[in-house]
Structure formats: structure tokens, C-alpha cells
């Protein structure tokens, strides 16, 4: 009985420590700066021929849409520039409406 309780005192903390080693966060895979996608090819694609139901296309749009939308829209680009320069606190509501 004494042996059992002393074994428990030893194994319980060991188990608690072992439980820390489990599924890890994806960020642990990042050994260096995460690679950004090169979305330049998306801008050249004819979007009218794309299958919007295709999960591959949806995944690519999800990855690149912030990049392609802002770079290809001259008005949006100007708004971003002005934001960066600090001339406007927020872009106007009209310019964001598409």
C-alpha cells in the first residue's frame, strides 16, 4: 500500500509532464520567416473562366484576394497610399463600396 502510493506520487507528475507533449501549434513548423504567396499569376488569370465552385480556386482566391484586389484597383491603391502616408485616418465609405 505504501509502495503503491509512493509510485503514484512519482508517476502522476510524470504523466502531467508527458501530457504537455501533444498536438503542437502549426507555428512550430515555421523555422524562418513564413513564405508569402506569389500572387502575380492570379492577376493575369481570366477570372471569368474560373470555376468558382472549385475548392482549389477558392483556396487561391482566399490566399491572394487581399493582394489582387488592392493592387489592381487604382482607387483602392491610392487609398492605401494615403493611409500609409497618414493623410487620411480611414478610407471613405464610398471608395470601399464596390
Amino acid at each position: 500500500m505504501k509502495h503503491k502510493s509512493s509510485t503514484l506520487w512519482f508517476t502522476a507528475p510524470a504523466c502531467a509532464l508527458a501530457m504537455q507533449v501533444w498536438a503542437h501549434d502549426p507555428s512550430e513548423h515555421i523555422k524562418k520567416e513564413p513564405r508569402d504567396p506569389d500572387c502575380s499569376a492570379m492577376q493575369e488569370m481570366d477570372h471569368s473562366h474560373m470555376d468558382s465552385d472549385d475548392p482549389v480556386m477558392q483556396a487561391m482566391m482566399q490566399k491572394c484576394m487581399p493582394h489582387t484586389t488592392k493592387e489592381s484597383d487604382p482607387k483602392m491603391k491610392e487609398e492605401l497610399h494615403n493611409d500609409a502616408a497618414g493623410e487620411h485616418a480611414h478610407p471613405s465609405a464610398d471608395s470601399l463600396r464596390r
Partner: protein
Amino acid sequence: MTRHLCTLSVLALLAVASVAVFVMSGRYPVGADVSHWQVTHWLLESLRERSIAHAAARIHVPPLDAPDMLLSGGADYNDMCAACHLRPGEDSTDLKIGLYPSPPELTASARSNVDEQEQSRRQFWIIKHGIKASGMPAWGKTHDDQRIWAMVAFLKRLPELTPTQYQIITARGKAQAEPDCHQRS
């Protein structure tokens, strides 16, 4: 009857002794640069395929079409799998050349007679549990089922991806939204 039993017992003991002598002699080549004998190769392949089919038979396959799954699974594939199983446009890598058995090219299309659901169950099981003495790790020890299913979802699409599509989907970074307005020539 007794004589037959004795004969069989002696033969069985001789067979076991022969195997033991062969194993302890160290004569069988275990280098990854020397292929198995044909019969050994057939035995191991058959054992592996039957074992996986049996173990994966009851796995329920969830929907695998969500774009988020492709993005998660793609990034993990690029980090953990591509060095052995290749990227679109790649013919080989040092790891693929050096490993025996050679890792299957997951960028190639699956055989047309393979059921998709069965293929997904099989891939999930292999990724989660690995394969003994093959170089294929058991990723289930460090990745939960959701992440593994995301990798399976990505593997379904991998054969159809171009190198451009692959680099977009597998990038962990975010697309740069702010143009650099301050570059001056």
C-alpha cells in the same frame, strides 16, 4: 501417427534453427541501397497493403472540399511531406532517391480503379500511424485528426495542381496587401 508427429516436430525445429542461424549470421543485406529479394519484397508489400486495408476499413471520411482544409493541409504537406513525396514539377529529391522503399509520388494521379473513399481512408491511416521500418512517420503522435484530414483533402487535389497553384496554396505567409509606395529610383 507418433512417428509422423516426431518427424514434423524435427522438421519444424530444423526450420526454426535455420532461420535463427541465418538471422544471427548477419548475411542478409539491410542497406537501403540494396533491394529486397523478390519474395521478401512481395511478402512485405502484401503484408503492408492487407494490414492497412484491414485497419482503415472502418474509418469515416468527412467532407474534404473546404478551401480552408486545402490551405491548412497544403502548408503542412509542403513542410512535412514534400521532401520525400515531391512537389508539382519535381522529378526527384535526395531523400526520395535514398529511401527504400521509395516514397510514392503523391503528385501523380491515383490509379483509376481505386475508390476515392477507400483512398482517403488509406491515406488518413498512413499519415496518422506511419509505416514500420519505412521512413514514413506516425504524424498522429503530434497532429490531431483534423489536421491530418486537411492533409488528406490536399492530397486529393495535389495531382491536378500546377507549380503556380501549389506555391500559392502552400504558402504560410499572407499575401502582401500594402504596396511599397516609398521605393524611389
